[in-house]
């Protein structure tokens, strides 16, 4: 992404909307690695005296382009940014990450219709398809499948990848940049808690932190 941590409000920066705002821990860690926020601040995550709210807050956190938390709203806001770029003839791109459970929200499909209708080729959607949501597996709770065909029929160029394979991820983003006249949706197959023995494919790790013992085990698994 074209971003500059020393100028987080640059008008021409690429935008990122984490529509599945509950994955804020991952976003904050990324922003810290990239130099938007100090790494030591991560310890304050979800605590009273910290600016790192449970869900991303654009007014408090450098590098957060949109406040999210209530599911289903991020794609509409990303569309607004993409429309604004078109109006101003700016070449920034807008990225929006959706959860596969989140796309059960009706607004996502209103927004998908709108992105296709307005031919937002400066927009790239990523669906994190880990097949888990709070009440169980996505297909059992309320199946959104087939996801790829749905986005196709709403006028998207679609790319399917293994969401853990960096080469595939980079290739998909590069491909999205070349698509003209329509938005792109990357459907990324992922495994929740990938690489951590006791977390893999466990829906219960949707939004909680490990204790000391679990943390030690997780770090061992990932090394």
């Amino acid at each position, binding site marked *: 992404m074209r971003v500059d941590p020393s100028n987080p409000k640059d008008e021409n920066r690429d935008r990122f909307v984490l529509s599945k705002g509950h994955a804020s821990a991952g976003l904050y860690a990324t922003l810290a690695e990239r130099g938007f926020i100090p790494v030591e601040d991560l310890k304050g995550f979800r605590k009273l005296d910290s600016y790192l709210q449970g869900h991303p807050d654009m007014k408090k956190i450098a590098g957060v382009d949109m406040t999210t938390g209530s599911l289903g*709203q991020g794609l509409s806001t990303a569309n*607004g940014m993409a429309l604004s770029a078109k109006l*101003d003839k700016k070449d920034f791109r807008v990225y929006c990450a959706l959860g596969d459970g989140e796309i059960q929200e009706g607004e996502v499909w209103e927004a998908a219709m709108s992105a296709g209708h307005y031919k937002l080729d400066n927009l790239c959607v990523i669906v994190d398809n880990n097949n888990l949501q709070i009440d169980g597996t996505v297909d059992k709770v309320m199946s959104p499948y087939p996801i790829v065909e749905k986005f196709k029929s709403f006028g998207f160029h679609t790319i399917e990848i293994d969401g853990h394979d960096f080469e595939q991820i980079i290739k998909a983003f590069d491909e999205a940049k070349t698509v003209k006249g329509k938005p792109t949706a990357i459907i990324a197959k992922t495994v929740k808690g990938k690489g951590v023995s006791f977390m893999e494919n466990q829906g219960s790790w949707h939004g909680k932190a490990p204790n000391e013992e679990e943390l030690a085990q997780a770090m061992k698994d990932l090394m």
Partner: protein
Amino acid sequence: MDKDTKIATRQSFGEALKELGEKNGKIVVLDADLAGATKTNIFGKAFPDRFFDMGIAEQDMIGTAAGLASCGKIPYAASFAAFATGRSYDQIRSSVCYPKANVKICGTHAGVTVGEDGATHQMLEDLSLMRGLPNMTVICPSDDTQTRWAVEEVSKFEGPVYLRLSRAATPVIYDAGTKFEIGKMVQFGEGTKATVFATGAVVSESLKAQEILAEEGIDIRVVDVHTIKPIDREMIIKCAKETDKLISIEDHSIIGGLGSAIAEVLADECPKKLVRMGMKDEFGKSGKAMQLLEYFGLVSKNIVEEVKR
């Protein structure tokens, strides 16, 4: 517009929006398939590049407006009040009010004065919904002049606004070009028998009641509450002290709207009885606008009775 002519505030809104678009290139307008009725089509015709019809998808409209605002645009998002605020309440709460997005939400066809469309389309809870949201400014103009002022005025500050507008044509109350101040009520007369606080479409009915009562030697004052939030606390306290009786009237539920806002200030500052006229925890029905105001007891005759009671 000449005084005593009648014009709907949605019409004034549509015309004012186009004028604002001429002055300010940042203004963009969104609608949800009701551009002919909300009158945003006037702007749409003049500035097609800056007008977005979002289809029948109010939630997406509000979210898109928030995204446009984050990039420096000043979006006015319009639909009928019922759908602009009710259908998309969570979008307004999370994507507009919490991040203080510079989105102006314009709800036309508020209240029973919608008329024939009936209960589903007669929004009676929008003031209540919007007033409860942090960071939101709530404005409900009473006539053409005030609407034109409000449309431009809200573009001058950064932050969420709810503009409540009506379908039915109502009399022009103020001279063209009159300036108002957000959060400052307008007082008509110095009468001490009663204060009638009114907002939007029923301000003209209140002024009519004031005339009728004056002929009988009963002097009341009417206060036009064009800004529901922030509410003008000083004016409420002043009128509570200076007048015998307090009445509020609105084309809205008596729960959560103008009456409630005034009652809150009275409870805080100077406890006094307040008669809240408005819709009594009920839905509207089909009919002509004026017939409905009469049916639900929201016309000058009812105000006169209430003052004399």
